[in-house]
């Protein structure tokens, strides 16, 4: 039984970026993953087991999108090696499904011709037939199949239509598999590629009428979106709306969550339990975790924007608009997507740098990605801004708090561009980098299902973090802040006698020039593991300190305890500080060296110290001390 299952034939999905390969994979396997329009977003190998109508078990492998087996990036190397059966850990595919976008067939046909040379059976699955039909692209499947010399099946992956037909075709093809041949493929040279494209064009002319039409909707939209000036204004407007939305739209839900945790805390405080346990439940557990979970709405909104833009096909346009500007800072246009993802979280951002072919370009992007304002900074920014920045309007309609938030994002971006500029000029000393060559896919209406899956996955990941890393940090902080207990008849607040105070005071000489008191130092220590923990930690420390309930807003307490200069210095620190253990771990993994992890950690630490120092001293000199 097990043997039979293990020998399930392997079916590899190969196709150009944006061909709807991942959507087809989802429809086939029901797997939960995202569908995107940006070339090369499928960076990880995905497999799924499927049972065909004839009862045959199949292992479907979704491979990174590519234009050719001639690999140029780590992603494309995976595709090549998997197709050729060179991956030691994987079985060679028994059948290759060349997935193609019916409305954009030309480059796919050349890839299909290349796949035919691998020496394994190939089948073509035509995706997005509905879109092609709507645009008047007339495909004769029989002619296409005859001219290509492989079976061709039509499917509409995103609507789950045509999947049955593909399943039947897989069954039919697998029932008469030839004995596995040895892969005979060599990287084509220019003349082979040229001949193949000419042959593909011949097939295209024979089988398809009306193939070259530019999608009228895309053409019209791009007149605006890619306009040299208008396009940049639209891009800035989108980013601005995104950040205002994160601040304004999330507020009602955040209030609701906050009230809910307050209620829970009150309930816990009334339980008939020993004082120390009630304190743990209310000040450690509920207020600690609650103060982090309250930011879930903001994170959901941010990811919704990023996924929406990705699925819409806007991300490649943004890269186009930003290429020259990023190039000025020594970054590749393709770095825009990883850096934009880093606004949500640096970890997926750093992983997305795999689409950058050149090693140095990639390293530079990895080094600066953590400077992008990730969602874990939002809790800290929000807390301090709402406590210290008045909620007034500038020019009558722009919220001052949102404006300060925007400024913090801008500081991160400026920092990243400066660091990459310096790295490029003084360390790499290169001028001409990798060329910027990118397909601009037609705009597609995002699929609600794929958006929902994407946002849910992120939200769950955040909640899981809140439940594990963050929760354990909160418990540690509560222990540090509660023990040892104050002696009998103590006159100072209880926390003054705790371990936390000892640690915080020990490093005070280093942080005093930054305006940080020992309470901030205590919050920064667990913040090294995860940035957002600092919020809960401050809550715990000050709630204990003030001897008040957790329902007291942390912000109000802070506003009474810190000077404006200290608050600003802490914001500046947070823009640059390397406070995320997971990010450092990912850098170590993606660069394959401890060295780059250390470089990232220390340059960010130095920047953070310098920025906080300058901010505090300047603010104090200006009378905000």
């Amino acid at each position, binding site marked *: 039984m097990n043997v039979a299952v293990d020998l399930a034939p392997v079916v590899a999905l190969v196709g150009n970026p944006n061909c709807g390969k991942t959507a087809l994979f989802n429809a086939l396997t029901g797997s939960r993953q995202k569908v995107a329009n940006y070339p090369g977003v499928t960076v990880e190998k995905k497999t799924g087991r499927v049972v065909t109508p004839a009862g045959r078990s199949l292992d479907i492998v979704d491979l990174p999108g590519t*234009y*050719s087996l*001639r690999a*140029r990036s780590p992603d494309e190397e995976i595709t090549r090696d998997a197709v050729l059966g060179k991956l030691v850990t994987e079985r060679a595919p028994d059948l290759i499904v060349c997935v193609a976008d019916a409305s*954009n*067939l*030309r*480059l796919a046909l*050349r890839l299909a011709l290349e796949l035919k040379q691998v020496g394994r059976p190939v089948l073509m699955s035509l995706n997005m037939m509905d879109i092609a039909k709507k645009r008047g692209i007339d495909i004769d499947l029989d002619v296409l199949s005859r001219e290509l010399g492989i079976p061709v099946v039509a499917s509409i992956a995103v609507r789950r239509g045509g999947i049955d037909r593909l399943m039947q075709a897989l069954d039919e093809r697998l029932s008469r598999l030839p004995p596995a041949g040895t892969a005979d493929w060599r990287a*084509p*040279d*220019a003349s082979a*590629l*040229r001949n193949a*494209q*000419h042959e593909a*064009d011949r097939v295209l002319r024979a089988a398809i009428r009306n*193939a*070259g*039409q*530019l999608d009228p909707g*895309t*053409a019209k939209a*791009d007149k605006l979106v*890619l*306009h*040299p*000036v208008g*396009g*940049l204004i639209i891009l800035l407007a989108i980013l601005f709306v995104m950040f205002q939305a994160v601040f304004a739209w999330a507020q009602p839900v955040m209030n609701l969550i906050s009230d809910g945790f307050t209620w829970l805390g009150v309930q816990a405080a009334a339980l008939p339990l020993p004082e120390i346990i009630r304190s743990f439940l209310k000040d450690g557990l509920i207020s600690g975790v609650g103060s982090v979970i309250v930011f879930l709405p903001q994170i959901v909104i941010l990811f919704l924007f990023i996924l929406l833009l990705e699925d819409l096909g806007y991300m*490649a346009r943004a*890269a*186009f*608009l930003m*290429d*020259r*500007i990023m190039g000025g800072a020594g970054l590749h*246009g393709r770095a825009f997507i990883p850096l934009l993802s880093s606004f949500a979280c640096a970890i997926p951002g750093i992983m997305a740098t795999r689409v950058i072919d050149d090693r140095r370009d990639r390293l530079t992007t990895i080094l600066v990605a953590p400077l992008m304002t990730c969602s874990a900074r939002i809790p800290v920014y929000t807390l301090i801004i709402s406590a210290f920045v008045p909620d007034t309007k500038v020019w009558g309609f722009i919220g001052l708090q949102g404006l300060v938030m925007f400024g913090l994002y801008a500081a991160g971006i400026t920092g990243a561009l400066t660091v990459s500029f310096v790295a490029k000029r003084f360390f790499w000393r290169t001028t*001409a*980098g*990798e*060329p*910027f*060559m*990118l*397909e*601009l*896919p037609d705009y597609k209406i995002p699929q609600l299902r794929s958006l929902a899956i994407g946002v849910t996955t992120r939200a769950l990941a955040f909640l899981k973090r809140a439940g594990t890393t963050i929760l354990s940090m909160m418990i540690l902080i509560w222990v540090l802040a509660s023990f040892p207990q104050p002696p009998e008849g103590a006159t100072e607040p209880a926390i003054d006698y705790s371990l936390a105070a000892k640690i915080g005071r020990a490093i005070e000489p280093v942080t005093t020039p930054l305006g940080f008191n020992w309470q901030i130092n205590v919050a920064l220590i667990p913040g090294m593991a995860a940035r957002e923990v600092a919020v809960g930690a401050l809550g715990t420390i000050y709630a204990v300190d003030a001897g008040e309930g957790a329902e007291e807003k942390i912000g109000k307490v802070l506003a009474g305890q810190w000077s404006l200069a200290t608050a600003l210095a802490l914001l500046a620190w947070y823009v640059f500080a390397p406070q995320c253990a997971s990010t450092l771990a990912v850098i170590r993994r993606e660069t394959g060296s401890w060295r780059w992890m250390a470089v990232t950690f220390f340059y960010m630490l130095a920047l953070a110290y310098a920025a906080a120092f300058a901010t505090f001293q300047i603010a104090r000199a200006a009378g905000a001390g």
Partner: protein
Amino acid sequence: MTTISTLALGDARVGFRGRITALDMTRAPAAGLPAPELERRLLELGFVEGAAVELLHQGLFGGDPIAVRVAATTIALRRREAMAVVVSQQDLQP
């Protein structure tokens, strides 16, 4: 009325329509890749002799990068690499 003249795609203006007559790597000395690799990448994105091209859009700074319709696909690239694509202009022919 048809006038035929060739130029590098990297020198073309927005609205240019024509056909690719040759790929000539010697015309793109500033490209970020060695000549054989650049040629293969251009070919893989569909820049092949005979293909119809139209320059659709360009960036703000120095008109760079450019978005080019190549047969049925839209490709974004920089002008310094597009210098290697030799195109013939076909005026006034719808």
